[in-house]
């Protein structure tokens, strides 16, 4: 009888987390379920010694340190894990990559509530026509995001509400309603 390997808990969890992130980014605006609440699971799924990360949370700093990632300033980080929605000045300094290497743009992970008062209409790749989402983040962030990024340069945003995640790739057009 063939012996099949079984995934460890770590493998199963990071595999499921990645699947949620991949589909969240492929279908912007659609919430996907993470296997556990919070941002720590995302760090374990994506981050290792090759990454430069920034976080303003003590707890996540410890998780990040355990992966061997370099802690750096926000403007140098390829992955950022924040405890609150940043202001426009913060978005402006994020890495956006270059036209030659757009993949060097940052990935920003933010806490959010998907039941807030800001209504956003999303269009672009991954969206069938259009989709509307509710967020608690201030509208000014979304208009600024549009001004800051020049495709193909830009950054990706993951919004985490408990164990739900919404992905906003740089290709998504966001309109504040």
């Amino acid at each position, binding site marked *: 009888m063939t012996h099949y390997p079984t995934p*460890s808990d770590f493998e199963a969890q990071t595999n499921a987390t*990645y699947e949620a992130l991949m589909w969240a980014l492929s279908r912007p605006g659609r919430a996907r379920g993470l296997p556990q609440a919070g941002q720590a699971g995302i760090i374990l799924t994506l981050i*290792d010694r090759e990454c430069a990360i920034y976080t303003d949370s003590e707890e996540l700093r410890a998780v990040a340190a355990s992966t061997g990632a370099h802690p750096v300033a926000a403007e140098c980080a390829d992955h950022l894990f924040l405890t609150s929605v940043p202001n426009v000045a913060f978005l402006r300094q994020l890495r956006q990559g270059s036209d030659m290497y757009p*993949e060097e*743009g940052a990935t920003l992970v933010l806490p959010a509530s998907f039941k807030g008062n800001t209504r956003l209409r999303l269009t672009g*790749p*991954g*969206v*069938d026509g259009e989709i509307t989402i509710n967020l608690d983040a201030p509208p000014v962030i979304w208009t600024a995001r549009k001004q800051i990024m020049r495709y193909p340069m830009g950054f*990706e945003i993951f919004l985490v509400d408990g164990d739900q995640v919404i992905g906003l790739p740089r290709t998504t057009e966001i309109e504040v309603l």
Partner: protein
Amino acid sequence: MSIKSLTKEWEPMAYGFLDASAKREIRRKTLKAIAVPGCQMPYASREVPMARGWGTGGLQISCTLINPQTTVKVIDQGADDSVNAASIRRFLSRVSGAPTTMDTLKADLIQSRHRIPEEKLREDQVLVLQVPNPEPLRPVQPNMSIARQMHADADYGRMWLQLYEQIVRSGRVMQGASYPSLVHGRFVMTPSPIPRWDVPKMHMAKHLTILSAGREKRLHAVPPFARVEPLVFDDVPYRVEDHGDLTCTRSGAKGYFMNEIPQDDGSSTYEVSDSELGVKTIRQRDGEGTAIGATWYEEGRMPQ
């Protein structure tokens, strides 16, 4: 931090063959590839027990995505039962315990060499295409550093010139497979050597496509509902292979991409390239209950 805290207990083999750091790198690069559709992302491309050029790129994506609940289908030039497809399928199953299938409708993850199944893919399915040459500019610019700069500048003039020269010389575009296509209006990508027949299936498709070249160490992606437009001139429309009116001699399936089988008398017969579709057509003809899903082409034509 110590070396011990960064390591883990010994295992005979990492789940899904690839080690955790290889998977994390592929995850990060695939996410960026989805965010910038059609843009080639460099990645490390680890060793797998298969020669480079035999689908190692696709295999690494599949190994990253796979878990015991993922039903896997592997295609080689449309067939599920050729050596390359059968051995990749067995490898994926052995390193993960994932169930395998030949039925497009039952698969969660489809790794394919050079064909997109004829049955429409759903929005929960992932298509992984094996790519031998991810650089569409290579025929016009062999220096990959300059080619990257051309992608950065969206400088695709030579690409158009190449197509124009083919039309002037031969009266039609001679590009048979891997037809250069513009993704989301910005990056020209090669859709891997799928026939022209399959390129329109990528346009605004519901499924996620990840294209990975293991030898060339680059991957790119086409997210769902993204524009994929083959490069064509306004007055020379895009043409797929004239297979719409052919009938499969074995199954009787009509209006799909066919393999040409030369005969001793110089003539040709045809059989449907998507082997599982042929099998299903035969089963249905014989009265066995088999569901054939909706197909992209209807009666040999792609609905506009």
